[in-house]
């Protein structure tokens, strides 16, 4: 294999390395551009804290799976490379699951199968196949982290919108406490709604039930893709 030859001059954070980290955040985003990992984006985005935990888990799994695969890339027999990748990912996911169960049991219960389903998240396997098998460990690690962050970024944007409009709160269920933003969950607003005369403007907001349903994240992803493409013209595919 060609890349085993040692190349001179490979900075830790050169232009290429930075690009590996930032590209997946925008012009090569795994969710909005490659449209991968949609299943979990629908399921775990009802609460911001859940989405945050899920994102951290995916960043960890993606980064370290890429690092390990890249370290082993010259040893992995190509006939069984997919199975080997799967073992690496599954091992890391189980580590995340066991740690989360010890650190925050209620969130572990809430995320239930979705932590386990990171194994089947196409983003992780896709990056291992496309990048880590042919690149050096440090770069693969950055690529993995970058893609995890790109996924997490979209997840958190969706979750913030869904939680504010669906429940009126932000970061509910987190150990840092929750913020009550709008509607009846906000004490000041609740007071105003309850005391305001019928039809006054204070009573305008009730929690939007659609936002709690999985379908809403489909709409939000669609809108995010639209917004992203309207400022990043490179992504617009004219054919």
């Amino acid at each position, binding site marked *: 294999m060609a890349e085993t030859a040692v190349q001179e001059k490979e900075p830790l954070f050169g232009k290429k390395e930075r690009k590996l980290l930032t590209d997946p955040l925008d012009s090569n985003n795994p969710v909005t551009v490659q449209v991968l990992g949609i299943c979990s984006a629908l399921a775990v985005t009802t609460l911001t804290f859940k989405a945050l935990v899920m994102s951290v888990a995916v960043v960890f799994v993606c980064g370290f799976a890429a690092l390990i695969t890249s370290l082993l890339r010259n040893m992995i027999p190509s*006939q069984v490379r997919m199975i080997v990748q799967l073992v690496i990912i599954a*091992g890391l996911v189980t580590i995340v699951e066991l740690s989360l169960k010890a650190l925050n049991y209620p969130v572990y219960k809430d995320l239930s199968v979705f932590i386990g389903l990171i194994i089947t998240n196409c983003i992780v396997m896709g990056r291992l196949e496309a990048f880590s098998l042919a690149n050096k460990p440090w770069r693969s690690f950055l690529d993995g982290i970058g893609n995890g962050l790109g996924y997490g970024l979209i997840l958190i944007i969706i979750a913030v919108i869904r939680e504010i409009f669906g429940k009126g709160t932000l970061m509910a269920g987190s150990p840092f406490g929750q913020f009550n933003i709008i509607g009846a969950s906000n004490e000041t607003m609740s007071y105003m709604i309850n005391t305001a005369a019928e039809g006054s403007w204070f009573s305008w907001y009730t929690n939007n039930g659609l936002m709690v*349903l999985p379908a809403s994240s489909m709409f939000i992803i669609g809108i995010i893709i639209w917004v992203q493409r309207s400022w990043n013209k490179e992504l617009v595919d004219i054919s």
Partner: protein
Amino acid sequence: MHSTRYIYTFVLIMTTVVAVVLAGMNTFLKPIHQANEAVFNKRAVLKSVKGTAAVDALSDEEVVAEFKNVTQMVVNMNGDTFNPEQVKAARNFKDKPGMAEDLDLAKEKKKDEKDRLHPLYVFDNGGKKTYVTAVRGSGLWDEIWGYIALDADKNTIVGTSFDHKGETPGLGAEIKDNPTFPLSFVGKKIRNTKGEFVSVLVKKGGADKTNLHAVDGISGATVTCDGVTEMLERGLKYYEPALAKK
């Protein structure tokens, strides 16, 4: 191309390494997992008596301390009481003391009705007793369960808490997420004026406020609500003989 022997060796070494790491980690973290799970279950029981918000504000240590004042009983559908030693023997517990909280209710539900063991928690609040019963049934997608707290008259509901495995967020999951649903049971009675067991109905389309045996259903979650109705009727009935003996 690698030889077949190389592939076998590689895969064997790799899976062994992963297995050892994971097994080690699991053994190391198991005590923490069990402690977390125990506190989680204790919180669910406490919520039926004290309400969700009050219990969420308690720390794990406070929950454990609070639970020390609770009398834990294990009963069956005939009203027989089991002591921890009998429970331990009946369920082959090795590292659990055989208290009511140690019962795996999902496993109990799979057993024959006659063989099932049910936990009964008795809260003593200055001589005034509250009985917490555990019920378990099926929602739309998967299991639902809850704790129903009954007043000293063993008839009036003073609080409930529900949980589920996989109900739809915003619809069936509202039994847990919507704080008004568990509260709507407060003050309802499980027996009619003649003293006959009638349970509480979760009524589609809304219940009459004066009706002591029905609460409002959740729009869009008819199957889950029917599941709650069925679970209450069947589940509370198991406790009838045990409660009558108290």
